[in-house]
Every structure is written in structure tokens, then in C-alpha cells.
């Protein structure tokens, strides 16, 4: 693996080169997509590129809080826990073209826990899918930024809001890619509480039945769901064994250690013959002391004082 700032484009070339004729052109297309990142990243080492990600994530954390405070409602907890992973995906692991959000060759990211869309919107804006200024229209009438992720937003692949549906959608994307001989990857982000939904297990069973190794699930294992801790609402452990028994390769990582996140996602994306799940140990509300591990901030906006304190902590 080349130690380069370019991420996926160089990280998994062998797989593409296997695909034979036309590869050069695919590589160039990808490069074009990737190059919409600051050009200097082309000349960075992998380590240096990854080192930039926490700063981007921090900025997105601030934007998450601004959006939710401005809207007066929304879901900070799960947005803050997922944001390091989203940053790694959109700024390092995934092949996307912000100027052409529907580019056929793009990797797909599906936010199954669609209530955590502030995290996704902040990331998409940072990556250039739409102006950062738009974030402040979140949840307001006539906005493209709905309270739960919806396809009207550039870069959003799936309309959600009802938990448990994203992995099935991802199976559909992965099967389609295989049918069309396309080599893009499909990443689906699930909440841990969301794994209570049986549809997740239907989808998991079908993904391994069809051997979808172009599909990666990520569980934001922040140990809190809507009201309370997952252990109190519905015990999930042993979670990795569940996925394994459903035919998946399971990896566990620290979801806030950017090196581990990138490494884990890249490893998961190269598993052969079966789908892979990354169980990311995270902290709900991560980055804001009084939101961390606090079920009260699953779905509540901070008040003015809390908002200022939070921004100060993230300065």
C-alpha cells in the first residue's frame, strides 16, 4: 500500500487493475474526483493526510452544534459520535465527486440512522457538495436539509427516518454494482439501538447469502439509544458474534482514533467473499463534555448557554 495522501484511489488499485481493459480511464476518472480535494494532498504521505482529518471533524462538530442550535431541535448525540467516521469516509476512504453527486462510479454512503443527518450534512458541506452556509437552513421550511436525511439533499443517497432500513438499501446498491460490473463500494452506517430492528438482520442474512464483499456496514456503537443505554433498553452483546453468526466478517475499532478508523474502514473494504462490519466503539455526544455519554442529548438541542460552552470546548 502506497503511503500517499490520495486515499482509496491508490489504496486499492490491484482490485481495479484486475478488471482489465478500460482501467486507465477509470483511474483517471477517479483521480479527477479525488483531485477535488486540495491539490496538495496529492503530495502528502498517508500519515500526514490522516493527520488532517481530526481538524476537519472538529469543524464539523462545531457545525453540527450550530445547525441544531439554530433549528432548535435535532439529534446532536449520534451526530457527534459518528462524525470522525464520516470524516474518514468522505475525506479519505471514499471515492466521491462533490461536483457530480450522482456520478455512477462513486462509492455510496448510506446513513441508515437518518436522524443523525446533521453529521452527514456537515460532512457533505465540508466536502463541497453544497455551501456550508446552507447548514443553517436545517429543519426549516423550504430547506433542502430535512430533519431526517432525504434524497433532496445533494450527496444524500437514501431517504430515511424510520430505523432499520439502510442496510437493505445498501444490499440493493451492492447487488446492482455487481450486476453492472462496477467496482464502487457501499458503506452503511447503523446505530447500535437501530440493531434492535429485525430488518437489520434480514438484510445482514441476505448480504452474506449473496457474498457481498463490496458492502461494509458500520455500527456506531455509542451504547446509547433514544431514551437510555442500550444495555437497559435491549442488550446487544455479544454484537460481533451476532454479525459473525450472520456470515459477516466483524472488526472492532475505536471510532474516535482517526488512524484506527481509516485503517478499519480500509481493511473492511478489502475483505473478500463476504460482507464486513466495522463495530466502532464511540462516545455519544463526543467532543462536548456535558453531552458525552448523556442520553439527554440524543435528540435535544442545546440551550444558548450550553451552545456557547460547547463551541468553546470545540474551539
Amino acid at each position, binding site marked *: 500500500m502506497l503511503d500517499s495522501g490520495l486515499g482509496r484511489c491508490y489504496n486499492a488499485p490491484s482490485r481495479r487493475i484486475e478488471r482489465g481493459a478500460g482501467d486507465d480511464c477509470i483511474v483517471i476518472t477517479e483521480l479527477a474526483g479525488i483531485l477535488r480535494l486540495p491539490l496538495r494532498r496529492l503530495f502528502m504521505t498517508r500519515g500526514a493526510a490522516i493527520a488532517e482529518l481530526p481538524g476537519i471533524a472538529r469543524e464539523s462538530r462545531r457545525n453540527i452544534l450550530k445547525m441544531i442550535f439554530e433549528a432548535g431541535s435535532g439529534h446532536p448525540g449520534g451526530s457527534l459520535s459518528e462524525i470522525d467516521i464520516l470524516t474518514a469516509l468522505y475525506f479519505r476512504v471514499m471515492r466521491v465527486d462533490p461536483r457530480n453527486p450522482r456520478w455512477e462510479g462513486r462509492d455510496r454512503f448510506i446513513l441508515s440512522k437518518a436522524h443523525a443527518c446533521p453529521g452527514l450534512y456537515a460532512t457533505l458541506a465540508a466536502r463541497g457538495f453544497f455551501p456550508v452556509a446552507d447548514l443553517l437552513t436545517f429543519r426549516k*421550511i423550504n430547506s433542502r436539509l430535512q430533519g431526517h436525511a432525504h434524497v433532496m439533499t445533494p450527496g444524500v443517497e437514501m431517504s430515511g427516518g424510520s430505523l432499520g432500513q439502510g442496510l437493505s438499501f445498501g444490499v440493493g446498491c451492492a447487488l446492482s454494482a455487481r450486476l453492472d460490473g462496477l467496482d464502487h463500494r457501499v458503506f452503511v452506517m447503523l446505530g447500535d439501538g437501530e440493531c434492535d430492528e429485525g430488518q437489520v438482520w434480514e438484510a445482514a442474512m441476505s448480504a452474506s447469502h449473496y457474498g457481498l464483499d463490496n458492502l461494509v456496514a458500520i455500527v456506531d456503537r455509542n451504547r446509547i439509544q433514544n431514551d437510555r443505554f442500550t444495555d437497559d433498553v435491549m442488550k446487544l452483546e455479544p454484537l460481533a458474534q451476532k454479525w459473525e453468526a450472520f456470515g459477516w466478517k466483524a472488526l472492532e475499532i475505536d471510532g474516535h482514533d482517526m488512524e484506527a478508523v481509516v485503517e478499519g474502514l480500509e481493511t473492511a473494504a478489502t475483505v473478500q467473499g463476504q460482507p464486513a462490519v466495522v463495530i466502532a466503539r464511540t462516545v455519544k455526544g463526543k467532543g462536548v463534555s456535558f453531552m458525552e455519554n448523556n442520553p439527554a442529548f440524543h435528540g435535544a438541542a442545546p440551550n444558548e448557554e450550553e451552545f456557547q460552552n460547547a463551541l468553546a470546548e470545540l474551539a
Partner: protein
Amino acid sequence: MTQSLPKVATREAYGQALVELGRENPDIVVLGGDLNKSTFVHLFAAEFPDRFFDFGPAEQNIMGVAAGMAASGKVPFVSTFSVFGMCRPFDQVRVGIAQPHLGVKIVCTHAGILTGEDGMSAHGIEDLSLACSLPGFTVVAPSDAVEAVAAVRAAAKTPGPFYVRLYRPATPVMHSEDYEFRLGVGDVVRQGKDASIIATGVMVATALETADALTSRGVSCRVINIHTLSPLDEDVIATAAQETGGVVTVEEHLSHGGLGSRVAQVLGRKAPVPLEMVALQGYTESGDPALLIKKYHLAAEDVEAAVWRVLERKS
């Protein structure tokens, strides 16, 4: 007029009433799906921890468990949001509860577009259509907190399956504490002779507001509160149609399968008169509830326009 009324959230009144019911009847058990603070059943859980069961977001299972408990002599109340209580587990409610006519009480909150900022996935605007598609189910959409309590009390003592539809925000309280709720009997809240406004839920207040405005313009409207959608009080509707010669229905639900659709059948079968329907025509979006009401044409001015159309058509 209705603007000056005190406001109470129907869901909060429900949560308190449920605690009282729990004290009165030890067979009452409550099942939740990780939305127990939002639905206010956490009050019951606090007082009766042994009779409260959380299943996380796994609505299919919740309904099946409730069916098993009803078959075991319990009086299970299931509470979640209307979209998760009616849309997600429709099949379980149909086969598991309606077909064997089991006494499960489904009390859903966050119905309709008053759920505002959460957006279209969270707007339960087809729940009445679905609930009325379940033969044997009693379906009640209370117009305010007092009626909500009465409906929930009726649910507890009426055998068989029951659906009650509640809202997130505080809404005007029109009824005094000594209001006598009669299940299955439409309530003529205002007499009138030129046209009938038939409304359900929170739109009863809008209907009254409209009737007030029209009185000052010399139009006398009868206002009927159809709190019980199923079984439907056909007599009160047919009589109103015959006596006033024109009907306007008002609901914040899709035009298909809700109040207007049910009233239309009665008119056709018993008293064909001009009908205008104020209802939603499609999916909505995130936004402040008051702005949504305006944008999606459910405001008093829309009801008034419908009354004028009916008056025009009568002549």
C-alpha cells in the same frame, strides 16, 4: 377564540392518565419502543417498573408481544410514534391483533404534521387510513387533552383492539373537565344551518375558529367533532348533511382513507350533498408546524374557502 385557550399536549395528558389507570387496574401493562419519554409512558414505567416493558425500536416484535399479553389476560397499552405504531408493524397488528380481535391498546403520539421539524418520515398522515383498514378496531383521534384522557379511559375499559392518535405539541384545550365523552358518537360542538364543518383531532379547533369567523359574515356553520373514526357515527353525519345541505371535512391527514374519505361514503350512501375536503394531498417536509399548516393548506382560511365553495355549490 381558540388561540386564547390554555394549551396542553395530548401525549402528556395520556402519560398521566395511564398512571392513574395503572393504579386502578393491575392488569394494565405498558409496552414501549425506546420512545418512552416522548410518549410519556416513562411516567407509568417509573411507578410500575414491573409492568412496563421496553423492546427498543423493534415495532413488529412489540405488537406480537402485546398480542401474547392480551391473550394472557393483560390489558396492554403500546405506545410509540404514530408512524412506528401503525405503518411499521401493520401486518402484526392486522394478523396478530385485529384478526383474533385481541384487546391491545395502541396509543400513538406525534401524529400528523404537527410533528413539524422532524420531517415527512415522521409525519403520521396515513395512520387513520391504516387503522380504519383494520376491522374491529376502535379508532379515536381526540381533539384535545381532555378528550385524549377520556379516549384512553375508554380504551382501557372497552374490549377489543383500540387505536388512539395523539400529538407532540401542546394544543388548545377546548373541553372542560366535566366533558362527557361518548365513544362512537359524533359531538355537535356548535349548531348551525348553512353548512356543516366536520373535523377531527386538532382541526376541531380550526373548525371552530372558522365557524366563528363565518358567523360574523352571516354564515351559520354546524361544527361536528368526529373523535371516533371507527365505528363511525353515521347518523350525526347524515343528519348534518340533510339539515345543512353541504359538508366540509377537515383533518391533517391524507385525503385518502381519513375523515373526509369516511364521511364521503356516508354521504353517498345516506345523504348525497356537496362535500369539500380540507386534507393533505401528498407528503410534506420539515418545518415549524404553524408554517406547515399554512403551506399545506390546512389553516382556518383554507377551511373558510372550502365552506364558501360548498355554499356556492349548494345553490
